[in-house]
């Protein structure tokens, strides 16, 4: 049996605007892309040391709000010319609920 943690309901998301979910001391940012896909990424940019939640979403990418680093919401990689990677999380969607899949936390 795998771990499955309820995060929030899909209806609480606004398209292309981040939603904050914290699990214990860990902060996650959830995003719904314009095509409907939902992604989760750790809400901490290793380059700025600040949150990424409030960035601008374009396609599969997030422009983080302090320095405009371009971050893939799919694999968490910070795009060239910058380097780095944020943890991304696999989600499970069931009956309008969003769950964290696996024991990644």
């Amino acid at each position, binding site marked *: 049996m795998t771990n499955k*943690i*309820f*995060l*929030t309901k899909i209806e609480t998301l606004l398209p292309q605007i981040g939603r*904050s979910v*914290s699990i214990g001391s860990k902060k996650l940012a959830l995003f719904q892309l314009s095509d409907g896909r939902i992604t989760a990424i750790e809400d901490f940019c290793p380059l700025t040391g600040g949150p990424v939640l*409030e960035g*601008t979403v374009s396609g599969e990418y997030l422009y983080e*709000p302090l320095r405009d680093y371009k971050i893939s919401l799919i694999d968490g990689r910070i795009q060239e010319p910058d380097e780095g990677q944020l943890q991304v999380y696999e989600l499970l969607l069931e009956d309008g609920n969003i769950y964290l899949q696996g024991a990644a*936390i």
Partner: protein
Amino acid sequence: MKEQLVLIGNGMAGVRLVEEILERDPERYAITIIGKECYPNYNRIMLSNVLQNKMTVDEIITNPYTWYEENNITLINEDPAVGVDAAHKIVTSEKGLKVPYDKLVFATGSHPFILPIPGSQKDGVVAFRTIDDTAEMMEAAGKHKKAVVIGGGLLGLEAAKGLQLQGMDVTVVHLAKWLMETQLDERAGKMLQSDLEAQGLKFLLEHATTEILGDERVTGLRFKDGSTIETDLVVMSIGIRPAAELAREAGLEVNRGIVVNDFMETNLPAIYAIGECVEHDGKTYGLVAPLFEQGKVLADVLTGIEAKPYQGSKTFTSLKVSGCDLYSAGNIMDTDGLQSIEAYDGVNGNYKKVFIKDNRIEGIVLYGETSDGNRYYNMMKKGQEIADLQSIAILQAAGEEAGSDDVVAWDDEETVCGCNGVTKGDIIRGIREKGLTNVAEVGKVTKAGTSCGKCKPQVQTLLEHELGEGVTASTGICSCTDLNRDQVMTQIYAKHLTTSADVFKELKFANAEGCAKCRPAVNFYLNVAFPTEHKDERQSRYVNERMHANIQKDGTFSVIPRMRGGQTNPQQLLQIAKVAEKYNVPLVKVTGSQRIGLYGVKKQDLPTIWKELDMVSAQAYAKAFRSVKTCVGKNFCRFGTQDSMGLGIKLEERFEFIDTPHKFKVGVSACPRSCVESGVKDFGIICFENGYQIYIGGNGGTEVKEAQLLTTVETEEEVIEYCGALLQYYRETGIYAERTAPWVERLGFEAVKHILSDAAKRKDLIEALDVATAVKRKDPWHEVVGDRDIQEKLYSIDRRELVTVGD
């Protein structure tokens, strides 16, 4: 005394020649240019972009009047040359000017060919060659509905597309079996036709026009088969003929055009000719590349440099109509006996055909995907053997084919910009020697990419190869587009775009959903252009404007309530104190603009704090009309001359919650001591006994800039009127994130002053401002406080405990 060089013709060929001469030896000649039109030199090729609303007339002017002045060139404009006395070396103009010359160049261009049929002189029958023709077509489009373009060649199709975009119902009448029959083979011609039909153009092929119908103005056409069509406008675009009448009268040898040898010399001494008016080796040309190649040869000849003989030009064609990319070069007409390689992809509408003779490329036709055009063209020009190249590769993995990247591997002599004859070497030298760092700069210096623009990706590739990280964004508003603010705005109006998604799609932004730079900018421009139709896009707002609070570096926010004019009272102070205590606000501070700020507020507390404060937002986080800083004024101060605080309050009440390109700060000082520092405000007022001085464009930030005195007025109402007019003019013309100081500098202080000094213009601006802001001028905090759904979605945080369920 310098030698007198006289040019007949102020067009692209002639002026380009002058530029080439100035580059070689700027002191050599005293230069006079005689022109017919009433404009300085402009890029005629771009007229179709003007007609298609992609550019303005100003943008296609390549050499403004100042260029003539700076280079000491005498321009005799709107006064065509009418006589040449070759024996005495004198040119006579229509108005009777006598201009002596030592060297004379004919660059008279060509005339559009007008069908010699009954009715061709009627009103509403135009050619498409000049700015005036274009203006006439645009005017007709405003009044009439139906248009016919006779001629389905390059220019005819661009004219047709332009008229359609101007709102007309357009039919193209063409004599041949398929469109652009001299540049395309039948298959490509049919592909083009079906794409254009899908865009709404209509076609009558194999139709010969025999008569233009109507009394004064055209009402229709009759064809050879007896059928007719109704129309309100006829554009003739069936070809050009060299303008060689004057040359013939002057005694020059003229066949189809003025006959020149390999050094652009005519049969008479000291007289030369270049451009569309010439015939070289039996050929005349109607495209720009040959003109420029001829110009280089003649510039060498005229400056005493040993010139390489001109050996005719290989030309290529591409069409400037969105959604119809085609490329044609070399021989594609007399192809009997030639071999060919062709590939047709009916799925994606791509077609490539290359004609081969003796293992070398003779002609090229591409439709759809055309990025290989330049590469094939260079292979053709060089006569490169194709034997060891792969001929067809179907369904190979993306990225494996040789694309534009290989420009890096080209030889320096190979042409990158075919329109302007710019080689790779020219561009590399520009980058290395002149420090060019973006496509726009390369275009300015070398002219590469400034005509049809198709080579811009290759120029970019060269820049990246040479400079790596040092490449700067060109004039575009961000790296998603080459279009600058004015071009984006022109398109928004012309195409009536009302959502960001439409803008990104229609204007072909590199990122389909924009980037962090252009998203808020485009949202702002749409708000300005179509305030009632455009729905503000929250996801495009920068975080501060989306949350209505300033994000701090740790992810908390600040709350700054509005205190109009900096005035407060005990109740407000008590309320602020209560909230600050209740929510453990870490910092309470008086801000730089005389307001009280609560710092370090948690996101989820924002809506309740706003509710409990029961005050409105000062928008201290927004690109908007900000707080008005005031001094205490004449009611208390011994030096005060006016009620500065009262005026500050009135200004805030009138203009609060209005978005501007960047923050707009205001100050009102009651005397010239200017305690509120009106001299560094976007809109600063200094009061004196009899009135108010208004200063604009000041900035106390990173680049300190003193505000300039706009005017002096007598009443508060006038101050408010000027403030509203300035706000709207700034909104309508400002680049997103451009403060008023650089804005005033960019537009010119005198120009801004000229607009604002006009009472009628001020009235119009204020009306426009009120219309634009009627719906959107609201306190954003109240909206959130009254909307539980938004509170839940935007301001709440879900907290989950980590519960491990073992297996």
